[in-house]
């Protein structure tokens, strides 16, 4: 093993485990337009990392790179120490509930059970046919974890926005996710539901890493261990407090991405 790769392995295993997410000098373009330019960061086990930034700044692109839905033009993306396509079954992706067809005939159970897809072995034979009893039990436990037990038979689209969002979180949990990726989970819910979702995140982070894309800078700074401000590039910032004023300044300034990482200390890129 070369010194370089040995060093890499050592870096990965800061706490004895492979880092959930590591970006190293990653760049990505859609056609001529450069969306991400040379960004590097790492998410450690148990971190709740928030990604904030203006629309079109590259937040969703980062999520897609983590999920292996797109590939970096340059640099390296690692998910639990390997390529995203290999490890993405360990990730629970939570999109916005408002993206779903409001007329779709799906029960809460149908939606949550999707989290069990692909977990009973990779062969076609094992994948065929209905879900197993153990899958149903996982589904019930996941719904209980998000406070929606007993709603299995309800029509998904008949629930409130906050409840639908929690059903999508339960879908991610049903797949035994070690890392949750949440794309603006509170963008279309009322203040009460928003509070409930953030409380839920607080309890979920005890057992998993979470990456949260959000526009709510005030809440994000209070619950996150790490804040990534994305606008094409990344810079690490020495502030321990993330205030609305600072971000306001940041969005309109030359500084495009800030990493507030109390674990890693202070770095300037």
């Amino acid at each position, binding site marked *: 093993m070369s010194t370089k790769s040995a060093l890499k392995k050592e870096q990965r295993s800061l706490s004895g485990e492979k880092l959930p997410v590591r970006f190293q000098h990653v760049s990505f373009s859609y056609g001529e337009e450069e969306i991400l330019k040379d960004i590097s960061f790492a998410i450690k086990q148990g971190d709740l990392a928030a990604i904030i930034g203006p629309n079109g700044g590259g937040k969703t692109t980062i999520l897609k790179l983590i*999920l*292996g*839905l797109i590939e970096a033009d340059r640099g390296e993306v690692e998910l639990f120490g390997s390529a995203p396509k290999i490890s*993405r*079954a360990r*990730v629970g*992706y939570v*999109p916005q509930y408002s993206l*779903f*067809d409001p*007329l*779709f*005939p*799906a*029960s809460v159970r*149908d*939606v949550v*059970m*999707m*989290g069990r*897809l*692909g977990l009973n072995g*990779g062969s076609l034979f094992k*994948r*065929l*046919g*209905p*879900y197993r009893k153990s899958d149903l039990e996982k589904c019930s436990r996941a719904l209980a974890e998000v406070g929606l037990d007993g709603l299995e*038979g*309800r*029509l998904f689209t008949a629930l409130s926005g906050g409840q639908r969002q929690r059903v999508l979180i339960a*879908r991610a949990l049903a*797949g035994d996710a070690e890392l949750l990726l949440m794309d603006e989970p509170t963008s279309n819910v009322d203040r009460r539901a928003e509070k409930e979702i953030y409380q839920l995140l607080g309890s979920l982070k005890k057992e998993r890493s979470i990456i949260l894309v959000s526009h709510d800078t005030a809440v994000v700074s209070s619950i996150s261990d790490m804040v990534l401000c994305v606008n094409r590039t990344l810079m690490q910032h020495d502030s321990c407090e993330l205030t609305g004023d600072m971000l306001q300044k940041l969005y309109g300034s030359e500084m495009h991405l800030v990493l507030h990482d109390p674990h890693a200390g202070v770095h300037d890129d």
Partner: protein
Amino acid sequence: MTEFLPFLNDLVSYPFLRNALWASLLLAPAAGIIGTFVTVERINSMAGAVAHSVLAGLGAARYLQVKFGWEYPTPLQGAAAAAVLVALIVSAVTRRGRERSETVLAAIWAIGMAVGILFISATPGYSEDLMSYLFGNILMIKPSDTLLLGFLDLSLVLVIFLFYKDIFAVIFDKEFATIRGIKVDRIYLMMLLLTSLTIVLAVQVVGIVMVIALLTLPAATAGLFSTRLWKMMLFASLLSLVYSTGGLAISYSMDKPTGATIILFAAAVYLLTMLMKRKKA
């Protein structure tokens, strides 16, 4: 009810009427399952493009038979080939996403019709059949066609049983399905191919012009009450059964075109149901 007595009497006497009834019964599961897929996935334009491209396949095959004396392809085979080709094109266009899919579908729709009409007009003594292709003629259906419908139903039920989880995931959330390791493109193509074959067989019953209505009206009515995808498929199949057999009986008894009667029956139930549901809400 006495108006339907001649229909029941003739059912015993005439094999062509029994074939028509079998076709009505066997078309229902396919129309319900595929109609639900088309409605929920919102691919009515794709279904329309397939239906109209069928005319090109039918016309070309018949032209080859009459003009050159070829035994094969039969018009049904020609229609199936055209429908499968369109499904492959739609799948490729959807996957690549470079062209605007609605534009491509509109082009296929019009080109299919144009090619079909050209072949039909060039086929000696064949233009009179144009009306039966456009508006269907269930009374002309052959026992071999009912067998094909039965085979299609069996295939669909098997596919839905085996792949229901994957099909649900692909329709509900393609991105999540991809992340969970589902071969989204393959599942989608499989459903498009089954949609195409269902359309080919349904065209013989209600015709090219009305086949989209046969797929969407029962499913749309079922969608007003269904809380789960499989229930919507089942309910839409039952409604299709009532519409197609009821429409056949009504049209035969009143001496009206069967395809049009089936569709108007289905449309009336859909409108009434929707109005009642709105009033209740």
